[in-house]
C-alpha cells in the first residue's frame, strides 16, 4: 500500500466541513478513499487531491472502493472529490490499457448510482481530459466550489494545435464558452450543474444535492438553458424522435 | 472562408429519380458534395463554402464545365470544401452526378 500522505489544505477543510464529528477518509499518493458519518447514515468518499494525474493504479484502486460500496448495498451515497491533473501521460499507462482503467472507474460510478448509491461530484481544484471524464463527469450531479478550474486543454496548447494566435483565442474565449477553459464555461455547458456557496454549510448543500438529484441526465438541457451548448439537447431529442418513428423524416 | 453561389440553366434535366446523394468528405484537400433534386428541370444551383479564399474564378470555370458536360438540370448542389484542388472538385461532382443518375 502507498504511504498515507497529508491531504491538501483545501481537501482537509472540505472533509472537516462535511464530517464535523470526524471521518475515516485517507489520502495516499493523491488518491482519496474512505467514509464518514453523514446524516442518518454514512457518506462514502473517493477522490483525487493535489492536482494528481490519474493513472492505471489510481483508477483501479478508486474503482475497487466504489464497487465495495455497491456490493455492500444500503444506498450509501458516494462523494467524488476532485482536484486532479489530466490522465497520466505515459507509455506504460497506455501499454497496460489506461482507457480500460479509466472507463472502468467511470462504469463503477455509473453502476453504483444506478443501483441506488447517489453519486455526487465535487470539483474543488483542477481537472482535465480523461481524469475529469472518469471521475467528476461520471457522477449523477457535479457541483463545484468557487475557484475550481477545470479545462480540457489550456489556451496555449489550443493555440499550438489550432495554429491560431493566443491573443485571438483569448479574445474569442471571452465571447464563446464552448472551447475556453474554466469553471464558468463548464457550468454553461451543463457539465457542472451547480456552484456551491462557500458561505453556507457544505454538508447541508451536499445533502440537498443528494436529495434533489435528477433521475435522468439533464446536462444537455442545462447547456441549452445556460447557452453554453445551444444545440446538443435539441439534436439528441431529434435523433430520438426520428429513431422512435415519431416524425416523418425528410431525405 | 468564402461563400460562392452559381446559378446555371441547363438544356435537360439530369436523368434518374434519386432525390438526394452525398459524396466525399470534408478534409484538407477534399470536399463533400450534397446533391438534391429540388429545382425546375432546366435549373442548377451550386452553393459553395470553401476554406480557401480567392479562387472564385477557378470555381466558376469548374462548375461551368461540369454543368456543360453533365447537364445536371433540377439539382441544387451544395459543397463544403476543405481546400480541394479543381481536379478533385470535378471528380466529386462527377461522382455525385453518377449517384443521382442511378435508377
Amino acid at each position, binding site marked *: 500500500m502507498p504511504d498515507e500522505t497529508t491531504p491538501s489544505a483545501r481537501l482537509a477543510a472540505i472533509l472537516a466541513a462535511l464530517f464535523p464529528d470526524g471521518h475515516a477518509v485517507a489520502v495516499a499518493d493523491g488518491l482519496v478513499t474512505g467514509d464518514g458519518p453523514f446524516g442518518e447514515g454514512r457518506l462514502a468518499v473517493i477522490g483525487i487531491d493535489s492536482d494528481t494525474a490519474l493513472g492505471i*493504479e489510481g483508477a*483501479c484502486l478508486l*474503482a*475497487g472502493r466504489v*464497487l465495495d460500496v455497491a456490493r455492500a448495498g444500503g444506498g450509501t451515497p458516494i462523494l467524488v472529490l476532485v482536484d486532479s491533473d489530466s*490522465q497520466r*501521460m*505515459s*507509455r506504460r*499507462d*497506455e501499454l497496460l*490499457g*489506461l*482507457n*480500460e482503467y479509466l472507463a*472502468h472507474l*467511470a*462504469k*463503477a460510478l*455509473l*453502476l453504483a448510482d*444506478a443501483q441506488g448509491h447517489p453519486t455526487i461530484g465535487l470539483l474543488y481544484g483542477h481537472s482535465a*481530459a*480523461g481524469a475529469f*471524464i472518469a471521475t467528476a*463527469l461520471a457522477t449523477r450531479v457535479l457541483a463545484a466550489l468557487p475557484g475550481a478550474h477545470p479545462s*480540457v*486543454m489550456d489556451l496555449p496548447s489550443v493555440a499550438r494545435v*489550432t495554429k*491560431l494566435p493566443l491573443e485571438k483565442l483569448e479574445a*474569442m474565449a471571452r465571447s*464563446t464558452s*464552448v*472551447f475556453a477553459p474554466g469553471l464558468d464555461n463548464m457550468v*454553461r*455547458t*451543463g*457539465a457542472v450543474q451547480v456552484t456551491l456557496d462557500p458561505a453556507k454549510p457544505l454538508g447541508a448543500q451536499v445533502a440537498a444535492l443528494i436529495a434533489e438529484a435528477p433521475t435522468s*441526465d439533464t*446536462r444537455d438541457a442545462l*447547456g441549452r438553458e445556460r447557452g453554453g451548448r*445551444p*444545440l*446538443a439537447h435539441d*439534436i*439528441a*431529442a431529434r*435523433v*430520438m424522435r426520428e*429513431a*422512435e418513428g415519431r416524425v416523418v*423524416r*425528410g431525405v | 472562408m468564402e461563400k460562392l453561389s452559381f446559378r446555371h440553366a441547363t438544356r435537360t434535366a439530369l436523368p434518374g429519380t434519386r432525390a*438526394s446523394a*452525398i459524396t466525399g*468528405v*470534408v478534409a484538407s484537400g477534399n470536399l*463533400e458534395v450534397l446533391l438534391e433534386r429540388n429545382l425546375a428541370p432546366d435549373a442548377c444551383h451550386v452553393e459553395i*463554402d470553401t*476554406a480557401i479564399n480567392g479562387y472564385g474564378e477557378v470555381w466558376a470555370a469548374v462548375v461551368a464545365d461540369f454543368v456543360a458536360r453533365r447537364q445536371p438540370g433540377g439539382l441544387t448542389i451544395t459543397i463544403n470544401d476543405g481546400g480541394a484542388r479543381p481536379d478533385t472538385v470535378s471528380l466529386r461532382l462527377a461522382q455525385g452526378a453518377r449517384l443521382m443518375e442511378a435508377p
Partner: protein
Amino acid sequence: MDWKPVALSTAPLDQSWYEASARARLAGLLDADTFEEFIGPAQRMMSPHLPLFELPRAFDDGMIVGRGRLDGRDVLVAAQEGRFMGGAFGEIHGAKLVGLLRAALAVKPAALLILFDTGGVRLQEANAGETAIAEIMRAIAVTRAAGIPVIGLIGGRAGCYGGGGLIAGTCAHLVISEGGRLSVSGPEVIETNRGAEEFDSRDRALVWRTMGGKHRRLIGAADAFVDDTIGAFRAAALAAIPTAPTFDLASLEAEQARLEARLARFGDAQDATEIWGRLGVNDPAAVPGLTTEAFDTLLDSLPERPHHAR
C-alpha cells in the same frame, strides 16, 4: 513474417475498412440498402462553432447515425468520419450519439454499433465535446443495463483516442483490426508532454505494439481481432451480438479482478513483447507480422484465453 497473397477483389465486403469513408463502412456493414439516416446531410445540422475558427463544416458534423439491418436484425448504428476534424467529438457530433443511445431504450434494437474513428475531443468545441463524452458513457451504461449490447468497431485512420478510448472501454464488446489503435493519450501527445525518450511517436512499430489491435486483443482490451475488411467487421459484429455481457455488478467485479490481475502480472513490463512472452507467446517479435489466421491460431494455443469482462 507470415504472408499471404494480396486480394485484388473489388467486391464491397473485401474493401479496406481503414480506407473506407464512414458512409461506405455503414453501407457495407449493414444488409444492402437498409441504412436509414437520422438527421441526414440534407438537414444541414452543422457545427455553429467551427466558422469562428475559419474552419469548414460538414453536413453531418462527422457523425452519421441511423438504423439498419444486420443479417435481418434491426440495429442502431453510429459511425465517425475520421477524416473530418480527425473524427473528433464536438457539440453536434456528440449529441447525435447521445440521442441514438437514449433512443435505444424505446427502439430496443438487437444491438447498437459504434464505428469509432476519432482522435478524441474537438478542441474548438472542447467543453461541449468533453461533456458529450460523459453523456455518451452514461447512456451506454443505461442502454447496456437494459440488455441491449453496445458494440464498438475500431479500425479507422484516426484510431480511437482520448475520450473515444473511454467510450470504447464502456462498450460491451470491441472488435479491432490491425489498423485500429485504442488508447487515451496518443503517441504525439505523450511525446510533446514527456519527450521522445518517453515515447518516440515516429517509431511506428512501437506505436502499434503499444496501442494497436493485436496488443489490445492479447491483453483482453478487445474481444475480437479481424482482418481490415468491411466483411470481416460485419461477421465479427454479428458474432458479438449474442455474447455481449450485460452491465451489472458481476460484470464489473469480474473486470475489477481482471484489471487488478493485469497490474500485478504486467505492471513492471517495459514493452508489449515482454507481456506477450509472459502470456505464453513463444516468439513475441513475430507477432506484429502474423496474419489474422496465424494470430487466431496463436490465441488458441495460449495457455489461457483472454478474459473479457467489461
